[in-house]
């Protein structure tokens, strides 16, 4: 343990000679251990990993006393020598398995390409080794799938291929930069188990970069927390989570939504606001020269549910289960069929102008705070847009006053109205989106994963804001999410969706503590839970 695999001393990285993103950090990674670097987005954790392999963008300047890999100083190495270290001695797994693979090469040839770089093997030996790697990462039916193209694999399978590629050089250190962030919970659990398993087989060190504290607590041996380019706290996992020393760490831990909070919700019944029955959303699959409809994609396949006034229904499910489609088609953004009654008005019977007038009843907040606002409009105009469209008689002065009031409600400064969306951070943008939805006094807001693109501490603030607004205005939420911990925090009722159908619904405490359906049980078991001894 005394001889670290990787030792970084006093590393600093500056962009454009001004902006310091990594500020004088030092750490060590030992053989066979799992080291987790945790921090919120923009804290400099990915840049730190890239700097070890010297893969920094051109405008970055690196400054360090030493970066030692097994006692070799990487700082003195030329680019040519570093090429032999990348992949051979240090493997790298990126966040997005969708864009990290070349779509026009088979996965087998992509793995072979990497092996060829580092080992001198014959054709057959190469094939054999690629197959071994795919078996090592537990890709089902590896022998047949070795000739598949990336698009034929699911997200989790692609991430397995990425891991196989990273392992191809038999590295001593594997850097995994948010390896599971874009994957579903159940897949995430599998990938983490796989990484742990491979680590035990090969004895390599694993450097995990993540923003997810719960995940880190279940897999890491040592943890370091980064805040604004500085490592504020380092420690063994058990000690770190039980006795956090630094205030920032404590703040992070307290911001985590906890599954226990679901027990405190009131179960008082209220009259229903939205009633959905037998709702379908089918896309035709057309084939042949006449474009005949051969089958349907059943994105939403006959769901029924109610939402009570002033309450929150959480719609839970993995990606591709149809929850977003359902949310958008309730607003008629995607065509669907079935009975939707809100406040006594049957929405599905309306078209054209009549439908437009009823738009004020349901509003939506999207997942991605970056693409959900027109980059060329001022924030004030964005918020006022709904008022302009639905209440054309409201005067300019009244509209401005209303925008000021809305900004205040979502805790943004008044002068935000004259700024552009890109000047705001992700959390602030999400607040603007909430203000835009609130502008027309909706009865129901569909929140489509509003917090999944945000950091934990910001996520906690947004959830708090949503709860406060619910108490003040009595608005109901349809909260679409894949994150069960958030569900526990905000929801009154839960509906679990699987392959277009709702397989289980009920009060939040009931569903989360005594799940009846096998899928719900699996989902709950896969959620990484913070390991804390209370």
């Amino acid at each position, binding site marked *: 343990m005394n001889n670290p695999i990787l030792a970084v001393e006093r590393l600093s990285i500056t962009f454009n000679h001004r902006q310091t993103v990594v500020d004088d950090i030092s750490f060590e990674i030992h053989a066979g251990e799992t080291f987790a670097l945790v921090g919120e987005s923009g804290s400099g954790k990915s840049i730190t990993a890239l700097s070890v392999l010297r893969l920094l963008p051109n405008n970055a300047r690196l400054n360090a006393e030493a970066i030692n890999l097994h006692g070799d100083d990487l700082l003195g190495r030329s680019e040519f020598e570093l090429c032999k270290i990348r992949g051979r001695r240090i493997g790298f797994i990126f966040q997005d398995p969708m864009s990290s693979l070349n779509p026009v090469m088979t996965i087998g040839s992509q793995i072979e390409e990497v092996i060829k770089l580092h080992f001198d093997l014959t054709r057959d030996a190469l094939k054999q080794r690629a197959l071994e790697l795919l078996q090592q990462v537990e890709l089902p039916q590896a022998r047949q799938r070795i000739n598949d193209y990336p698009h034929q694999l699911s997200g989790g399978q692609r991430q397995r291929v990425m891991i196989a590629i990273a392992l191809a050089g038999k590295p001593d250190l594997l850097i995994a930069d948010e390896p599971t962030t874009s994957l579903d919970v159940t897949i995430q659990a599998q990938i983490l188990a796989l990484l742990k398993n491979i680590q035990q087989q090969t004895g390599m060190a694993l450097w995990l970069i993540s923003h997810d504290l719960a995940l880190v607590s279940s897999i890491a041996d040592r943890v370091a927390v980064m805040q604004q380019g500085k490592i504020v706290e380092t420690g063994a996992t058990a000690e770190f989570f039980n006795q956090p020393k630094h205030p920032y760490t404590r703040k992070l831990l307290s911001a985590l939504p906890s599954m226990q909070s679901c027990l405190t919700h009131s179960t008082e019944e209220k009259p229903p606001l939205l009633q959905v029955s037998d709702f379908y959303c089918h896309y035709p699959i057309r084939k042949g020269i006449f474009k005949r409809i051969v089958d349907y994609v059943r994105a939403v396949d006959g769901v029924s549910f109610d939402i009570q006034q002033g309450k929150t229904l959480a719609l839970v499910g993995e990606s591709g289960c149809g929850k977003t489609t359902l949310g*958008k088609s309730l*607003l008629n*953004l995607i065509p669907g069929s079935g009975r939707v009654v809100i406040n006594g008005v049957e929405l599905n019977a309306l078209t054209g102008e009549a439908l*437009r*007038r009823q*738009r*004020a009843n*349901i*509003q*939506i907040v*999207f997942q*991605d705070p970056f*693409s*959900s*606002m*027109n*980059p*060329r*409009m*001022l924030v004030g105009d*964005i918020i006022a*847009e*709904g008022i*302009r*469209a*639905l209440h054309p008689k409201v005067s300019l002065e009244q509209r401005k006053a209303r925008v000021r009031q809305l900004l205040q409600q979502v805790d943004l400064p008044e002068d935000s109205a*004259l700024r*552009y969306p*890109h000047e705001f951070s992700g959390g602030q943008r999400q607040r603007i*989106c909430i203000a*835009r939805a609130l*502008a*027309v006094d909706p009865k129901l807001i569909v929140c489509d994963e509003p917090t999944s693109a945000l950091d934990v501490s910001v996520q906690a603030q947004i959830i708090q804001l949503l709860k406060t607004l619910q108490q003040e205005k009595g608005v109901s939420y349809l909260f679409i999410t894949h994150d069960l911990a958030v569900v526990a925090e905000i929801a009154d009722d839960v509906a679990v969706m699987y392959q277009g159908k709702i397989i289980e619904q009920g009060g939040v405490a009931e569903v989360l503590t005594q799940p009846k359906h096998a899928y719900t049980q699996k989902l709950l078991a896969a959620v990484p839970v913070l390991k804390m001894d209370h």
Partner: protein
Amino acid sequence: MVVLWTDALIYLLIVVMLALGLYLRGKEHIKRPLQQIGSSKIGMISLVVLLFFVLIGLLDSVHFKPADDKKNEIVSLLDDWATPLREHGEKTYSAPFAITLYSKEMMMLADGSIQWGYPRLEFGGRHLDDPETQRIRDILQKGFYGLAQGVGLTGLFMMLYLCIPMLRRGNTVRVAPAARAVVNPSTKAVWLVLFIIVPLATTLIHLSAYYHVFGTDKVGEDVFYQAVKSIRTGLVIGTLTTLIMLPMAIIFGILAGFFRGWVDDVIQYVYTTLNSIPGVLLIAASILMVQVYMANHEAAFTSVIVRADMRLLFLCMILGVTSWTGLCRLLRAETLKLREMEYVQAASALGVKQGAILLRHILPNVMHIVLISVVLDFSSLVLAEAVLSYINIGVDPTSYSWGNMINGARLEMAREPIVWWSLTAAFVFMFALVLAANLFADVVQDAFDPRRSGNE
């Protein structure tokens, strides 16, 4: 005063731009990008150069019949001011600042003998008694005089510019601090450019009264006058064609991308059909049509300039009709992408009408594409005009254009010694205009993109 068709369209364009300027004056989010353009050095320099071209083009767009008209001729303000230049025709080619023709001729001398040599020009350097010794000195002297005029003129303007705000403040004592406060880097750059352009222009004007500063062409016309007159043709082709092309490209492109379905099918069908007809064919056909029409209605087209103008207008129209498809295709693709953006969905969830979505969300977000392709098209249209003139379906051979100048000079490239001045003059003027337009468009595009503004 006589208003030609293209004149009328140019006036209309100016009125529209002024109205737009007035309408946008109070808008907060327009003010900021404009301020950014104002503070960009390159932006202001290229704007000054562009305005200089536009000013000449406008002077050349005010047509009237002179009072003492004998030839039933329509002239522009520019022609009127440049009358000596216009009428100082030589016999044939002469080099810049030359005092003799470019080729030898049989000359009858005063004593009746015949000599084989370079005859003196009728106008260029006629005032010199002994050209061999006086010429260089005279050119420098006159050039310096013109330069001094220009510097003096600009200096006077600058004094006025600096004094007016001071007088308004009633503070005439402390000149230096006030001057420093008014002059920021971009205004300094503007003054620098003015101090280059204006003296250059006055020097050329002053010299052109005595010499042919860019030489003369085959029929002895002054090349400097031709190049200046071509500015209007270039600007008209660039702007009017764009004006005709833009609405079609934007409306069709956005509608096809946004509504898809049968609208998309129809529009795509139209532009693929139009695209598969060779553009030259359409242009040749329409130019021929105009000529036949003018021949049949001779009463309405009595003057050469009216005919040339009609042909120019039709050229603009047909170029516009054939060149909108490329931009339309780009806009359709971009709209297809934008309509799936979440802010468009949010707008329709808020009950915003489809027309408003198109205007407020789609249109502003495709404007960068429009701007880029407009500028690229502007330069390529000026060049296209040159190519079309070559196969005789461009502007009227009697009207002035850089295309006609290049076309005329083309054959003389093979001559020994080479006749280089027509081509060079056309190239320099065209290059300055297109470069200024490109640079200015870059700055405008950066300023109106909120994600990039304020980063510099």
